[in-house]
């Protein structure tokens, strides 16, 4: 592609072939667009949507507070889950068989039971263990507190969601750590790096490339799983807030739309955040310092042959011919 022409050559006459026609594509596109148009029309003309009610409640105090609580539950339970998942993934790789076994058992249990069941369970923890005590087993007690003062409904919701999620994330982290070439660890070992430094500075940053996309998926999933905290019962989240309003107004459809709009807005924001995190951890692999891309060269190459424009921008990165 890099031309080495010294002497002027005869201008290239491009083939410019007549492309194959695709009538099937046109027909299917028209059908899809037609259905979409009908749906959009119904949104406007069907009075049962009650857009006026949607407008009234979209910024309702209860709804906005519900959005806040849903966000808090999502963030708090994901943070808890990520911390636990890193720990579980490290334990799973440990040379200590007790660590490996307990990590496996944790994943087995929390992935193997429904999150709804776990949420109900955390809500009932005070019934099962009325007091939390510290002391020596079968020996003296140092202090004791009522479980219900420590595990509030908020704490129960976060624990229920976070512990369940940690099991899934642990598997994602384990896959990520395994995806890093063994040679990376050897190179770091040969430089005299300690185990902890190798993990945090060499292995994990590379594993993150594999870990971030599914974790983003899980975060978006968690956003919507928070609607199950009613099981605890936790009654301040977005879904509970809109359901309450729907029951009060006997207008379930517009309030479901209110909730759906908010979930979509938050999901969209999370996707933007994920994009930037992916770019950060893709450094050197997917994300090759955009500053080195030479737009002039790309343009020149595209002018020579139209098909060259379809070549990955990556190729323009290396001015030297010696680069692969």
């Amino acid at each position: 592609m890099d031309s080495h022409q010294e002497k002027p050559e005869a201008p290239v006459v491009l083939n410019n072939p007549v492309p194959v026609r695709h009538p099937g594509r046109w027909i299917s596109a028209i059908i899809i667009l037609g259905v979409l148009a009908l749906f959009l029309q119904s949104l406007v003309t069907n009075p049962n949507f009650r857009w006026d009610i949607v407008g009234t409640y979209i910024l309702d105090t209860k709804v906005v507070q519900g959005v806040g609580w849903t966000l808090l539950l999502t963030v708090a339970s994901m943070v808890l889950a990520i911390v636990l998942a890193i720990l579980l993934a490290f334990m799973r790789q440990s040379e200590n068989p007790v660590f490996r076994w307990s990590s496996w058992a944790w994943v087995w249990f929390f992935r193997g039971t429904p999150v709804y069941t776990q949420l109900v369970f955390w809500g009932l923890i005070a019934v099962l263990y009325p007091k939390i005590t510290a002391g020596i087993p079968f020996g003296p007690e140092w202090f004791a507190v009522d479980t219900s003062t420590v595990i509030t409904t908020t704490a129960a919701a976060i624990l229920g969601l976070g512990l369940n999620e940690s099991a899934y994330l642990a598997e994602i982290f384990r896959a990520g750590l395994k995806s890093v070439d063994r040679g990376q660890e050897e190179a770091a070992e040969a430089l005299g790096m300690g185990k902890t430094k190798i993990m945090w500075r060499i292995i994990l940053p590379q594993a993150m490339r594999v870990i971030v996309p599914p974790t983003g998926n899980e975060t978006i999933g968690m956003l919507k799983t928070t609607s199950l905290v009613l099981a605890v019962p936790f009654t301040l989240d977005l879904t509970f807030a809109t359901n309450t309003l729907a029951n009060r107004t006997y207008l379930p459809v517009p309030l479901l739309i209110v909730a759906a709009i908010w979930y979509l807005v938050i999901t969209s924001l999370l996707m933007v955040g994920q994009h930037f995190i992916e770019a950060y951890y893709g450094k050197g692999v997917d994300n090759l310092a955009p500053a080195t891309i030479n737009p002039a060269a790309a343009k020149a190459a595209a002018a020579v042959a139209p098909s060259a424009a379809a070549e990955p921008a990556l190729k323009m990165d290396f001015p030297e011919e010696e680069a692969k």
Partner: protein
Amino acid sequence: MTITTETPLVRIEGLHKFYGQHHVLRGIDLEVNRGEVSVVIGPSGSGKSTMLRCVNLLETISAGRISVDGQLIGYRDVKGRLHDLKTKEIAAQRREIGMVFQRFNLFPHKTALYNIMEAPVHVKGQSRDAARKRAMELLDRVGLADHAGHYPSQLSGGQQQRVAIARALAMDPELMLFDEPTSALDPELVGDVLNVMKDLARSGMTMIVVTHEIGFAREVGDRLTFMDGGVVVESGDPQEVLANPQHPRTKEFLSRVL
């Protein structure tokens, strides 16, 4: 050019390596003096890479002893009984030994400059400025000063390997191990890497080089060792071994590669 001191820098005695039932190394003895370039050749599967990897404990030592600069590698000798060293102690021993891999193994998420600075800053605790200055000097030495900001994926194989050599040198090792450093390279890129290695050899670095580059052995090697089937078949002055191999297996191998 051999600077002879009292004891060799590297001494390998009766080294054995088992992978389960598979007996890979069957009693290797090798000595490398300070400032010497010791080249090891042999067919694939002869155990030459395994031996090299034992020297910095990327492989555990099944039997025998390796010492570098008088220090026993991987063990502590307490009244004749060997005790495993702790991970931290092993890491400290590895700091004195640089290693260059066949597959380069640069850190893909760091630029050439940061690949080189990583260990001086985060292992030795050098200041960033000092490490950066030294890294730039080393990049210049391997002819890549203008590639400091490139990620490994933006470098050719030969360039990556030269950065890898600079990365190992940044720790100021007293011994450099090369594990088939040119075997993964396109033929036209081999020369640049070999030139860097020759320059290093002439500067007095002690090197053990596992390679298929016979020309390199002849030009800068102080000693050539031919391994086959997990044993040292023949060892001596490179010119003599290459011109007049004594063992039929050496003859056969050389007739195929020369």
